[in-house]
């Protein structure tokens, strides 16, 4: 057989064998050696930029050269490849080839054949055959060499196609696996777990980590690690990596072109202090791209070779696979994040709706019972009932602004037996039924006083910042939630111990923008932790409670005022009737008295004239007696209706005031009111002692009612000479907080009162009596502190002078009336 054909046959056998592509290329080169005098065969591959030739295979394999695997394309060899024309250089030692033979791979040879390795489409490189002899191929040999070169090109092409396909298949398999994983769940947590696992598995890394941050707030939404992630890879590296754009591989000690200086610095920095055992030789990181407001990072650590289990470096291929995974999971993760967010919102909405409906029901219960007495209890029952907010205990403390303390007004403790078995379950109650339920519960519980009440009823919290959270809730007007009572320095330890508190919350009660009290809640029985949500709900309820309390207070006030108004009006009508009757009687008396005096007078004269006739005298006596009786009746009518000036005398005002104090002694003692008396040396006053006494009695009563918690009543008399007139004054000063300035002008109005008890006629009567005595009432009102009444009378001497003037006028007026 022809030698050439023999060679070709062997070449084709090698090319089609099942050994690896590289081995096939090597085998073919080996076949070329020592054929036709060839002593060295070299296969160069053209780099993609066509600038350089890179040594791919060489035969014989044990060639020693200085190591440079590259050859510039601008050589006769490169030209040959570019020009697609084989080249023969018979004598390399000629001058023009001096540069070429300098390359160590070509050194020491005499002649060179270069064949382009190409197929119809692509140039893959060149085949160089070298010999120390002179190579002179005949046309048949050239054809043979050309065929061999084409065979090499075919192997290289196949190798590339194979590699590409393998990559594609690997990628498809990754896509399949990842896709299968992320398609299997919508649950974020589950999904993340699977993503990190599959990522590590697909890349064949020992560990993987995923982190997603919210863009604006930088809060971590997702953070998950899988497998062996060195503890040194702390959040900060992760964050650092997050800030870097693009993807990167960091292989320890390699010179991979994708290695990035910053990343290397990072690695070095973080590996120095981390100890030998946790050193990572390599890791790989990609950015996850989201449409929404997130950014994230997916990392893998330490690739393990499939064959022997040793650590190997990440390749560009691994990076591309990781990127593919990143692209697929990003949108799924985003969907899951959104889903979770929606679910959270939905849960929150549901929670809100449930609580709002509870609040609404509590609210309607509060509105149903508008009596001030029941309302606080209803509020507290709503807080402690399981069907309400479900706290173990609630205490409503109202502020006493005068004494600057908070005192409990009502409280409630959850009882296991609260459930009324006759009632349907709360869920099945309609709004009205539920309102009734709360009201009934409140009524039932009002009657059951528990032992625990003893603990609560005499709590007093001074309204200072230092006295604990309850006072601060009031003073600062905001809610507090205290988790660990005993560790909290702000706590009133004594109170906390007394109430057996581990944790509690307190919210202010507002009425018309002003804090009026505090609601304290705790779970001292069931120890359930109090959440922010509880606090939120409680604040809402407290707000409602404030409004309802205010409403009830106003309602009670209106009702009371209305009642008092009714009483006042009745009295007024009564007194007007009396006045009318009096006027009538008085007029009648005058008209009757004169004829009566005539009749009576003359009958007495007749009686004297007929002194001998017993029978006649007895008749006269009847007339005399009857006239006397009529006169007596007349006098009684007059006394009843007449202006009481008939009793005006000169009196010692000190004595009158002292006597009035005596009348009120019981109230003063009961109200724990201290009395300070200062009797001045004063002239006598002119008037009716009963009426004057009534003035002071009324004023003292007023002061007592203004100081229900006790206080100081100062009574002082003195005389002062003014420019025009001199007064005898009695000052009555209390510490009852005074009168609101806006109602001050109304206090002498008989239809007006701010007091809980009393008719509201006290002060108007005082005013009327004092005015009738030509006196004056001055007021020194100090809101928030107290009020002073200055009751001023003219001295008896001045009173008489005045009276003269007044009576004259009166008499004249009367005259005019009579003459009319």
């Amino acid at each position, binding site marked *: 057989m022809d030698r050439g054909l023999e060679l070709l046959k062997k070449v084709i056998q090698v090319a089609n064998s099942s050994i690896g592509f590289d081995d096939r290329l090597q085998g073919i080169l080996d076949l070329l050696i020592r054929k036709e005098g060839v002593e060295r065969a070299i296969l160069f591959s053209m780099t993609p930029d066509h600038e350089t030739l890179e040594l791919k295979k060489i035969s014989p394999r044990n060639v020693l050269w200085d190591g440079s695997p590259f050859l510039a394309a601008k050589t006769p060899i490169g030209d040959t490849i570019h020009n697609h024309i084989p080249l023969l250089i018979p004598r390399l030692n000629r001058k023009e080839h001096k540069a070429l033979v300098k390359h160590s791979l070509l050194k020491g040879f005499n002649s060179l054949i270069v064949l382009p390795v190409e197929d119809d489409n692509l140039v893959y490189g060149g085949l160089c055959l070298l010999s120390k002899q002179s190579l002179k191929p005949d046309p048949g040999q050239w054809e043979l060499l050309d065929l061999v070169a084409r065979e090499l090109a075919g192997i290289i092409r196949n190798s590339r196609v194979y590699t590409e396909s393998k990559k594609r298949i690997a990628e498809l398999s990754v896509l399949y696996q990842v896709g299968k994983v992320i398609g299997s769940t919508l649950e974020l947590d589950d999904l993340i777990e699977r993503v990190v696992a599959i990522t590590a598995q697909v890349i064949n890394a020992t560990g993987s980590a995923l982190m997603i941050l919210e863009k604006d707030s930088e809060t971590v939404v997702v953070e998950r690690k899988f497998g062996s992630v060195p503890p040194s890879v702390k959040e900060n590296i992760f964050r650092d990596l997050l800030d870097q754009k693009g993807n990167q591989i960091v292989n320890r000690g390699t010179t991979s072109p994708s290695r990035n200086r910053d990343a290397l610095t990072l690695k070095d920095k973080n590996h120095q202090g981390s100890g030998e055992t946790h050193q990572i030789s390599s890791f790989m990181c990609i950015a996850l791209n989201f449409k929404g407001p997130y950014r994230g990072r997916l990392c893998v650590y330490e690739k393990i070779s499939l064959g022997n289990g040793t650590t190997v470096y990440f390749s560009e291929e691994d990076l591309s696979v990781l990127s593919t995974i990143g692209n697929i999971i990003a949108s799924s993760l985003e969907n899951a994040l959104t889903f979770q967010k929606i679910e959270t919102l939905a849960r929150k909405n549901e929670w809100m709706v449930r609580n709002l409906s509870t609040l609404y029901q509590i609210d309607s219960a509060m509105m149903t019972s508008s009596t001030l007495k029941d309302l606080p209890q209803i509020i507290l029952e709503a807080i402690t009932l399981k069907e309400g907010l479900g706290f173990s205990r609630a205490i409503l403390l109202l502020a006493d602004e005068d004494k600057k303390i908070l005192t409990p007004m009502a409280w409630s403790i959850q009882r296991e037996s609260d459930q009324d078995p006759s009632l349907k379950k709360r869920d099945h109650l309609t709004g009205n039924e539920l309102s009734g339920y709360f009201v009934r519960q409140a009524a039932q519980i009002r009657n059951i006083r528990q032992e625990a009440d003893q603990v609560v009823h005499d709590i007093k919290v001074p309204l200072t910042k230092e006295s604990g959270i309850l006072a601060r809730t009031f003073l600062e007007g905001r809610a507090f939630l205290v988790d660990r009572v005993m560790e909290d320095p702000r706590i009133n330890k004594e109170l906390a111990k007394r109430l057996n508190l581990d944790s509690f919350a307190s919210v202010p009660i507002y009425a018309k923008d002003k804090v009026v009290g505090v609601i304290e809640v705790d779970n001292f029985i069931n120890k359930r932790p109090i959440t922010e949500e509880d606090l939120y709900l409680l604040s809402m309820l407290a707000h409602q409670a404030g409004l309802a309390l205010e409403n009830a207070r106003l309602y009670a006030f209106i009702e009371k005022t209305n009642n008092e108004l009714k009483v006042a009006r009745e009295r007024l009508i009564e007194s007007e009737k009396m006045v009318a009757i009096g006027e009538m009687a008085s007029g009648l008396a005058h008209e009757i008295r004169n004829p009566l005096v005539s009749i009576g*007078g003359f009958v007495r004269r007749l009686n004297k004239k007929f002194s001998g006739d017993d029978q006649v005298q007895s008749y006269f006596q009847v007339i005399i007696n009857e006239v006397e009786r009529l006169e007596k009746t007349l006098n009684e009518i007059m006394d009843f209706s007449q202006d009481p*000036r008939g009793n005006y005398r000169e009196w010692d005002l000190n004595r009158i005031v002292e006597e009035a104090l005596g009348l009120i002694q019981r109230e003063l003692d009961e109200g724990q009111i201290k009395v300070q008396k200062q009797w001045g040396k004063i002239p006598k006053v002119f008037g009716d002692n009963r009426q004057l006494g009534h003035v002071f009695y009324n004023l003292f009563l007023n002061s007592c009612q203004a100081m229900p918690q006790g206080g100081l009543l100062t009574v002082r008399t003195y005389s002062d000479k003014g420019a025009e007139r001199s007064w005898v004054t009695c000052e009555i000063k209390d510490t009852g907080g005074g009168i609101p300035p806006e109602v001050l002008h109304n206090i002498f109005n008989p239809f007006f009162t701010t007091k809980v008890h009393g008719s509201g006629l006290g002060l108007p009567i005082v005013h009327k009596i004092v005015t009738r005595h030509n006196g004056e009432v001055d007021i020194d009102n100090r809101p928030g502190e107290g009020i002073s009444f200055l009751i001023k009378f003219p001295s008896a001497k001045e009173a008489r002078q005045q009276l003269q003037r007044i009576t004259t006028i009166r008499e004249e007026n009367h005259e005019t009336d009579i003459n009319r």
Partner: protein
Amino acid sequence: MKRILIADDEEALQRLYKEEFEDEGYEVLVAGNGNEVISLLEDPSHLPDLIVMDIRMPGMNGIDTLRIIKEKYPRIPVILCSAYSEFKQDFSVWASDDYVVKSSDLTELKEAVKKHLKE
């Protein structure tokens, strides 16, 4: 014999007072209103030792008349005798010497007269 001036617009009362006081041994002059009292006083021969006067009278009333009397004849005691019991407390203010509420029993009035005549 002491002379008393009675001033009252009721004729029946004038007569009653006159007869009663005459029985008591006084000389009694009568006037129907304040003007008559003043004109009577202008005649020195009629000057009374004491005047008993109603308050409500037509023409000049008792209070105005009293003021004039006390101005011109401060020494003559004046006893107001009226159907108004409520003015009783004011008599000293008006500078009358006494005040007696009218009654068919004249004992109180007679004693007052006696007292002011210093009998």
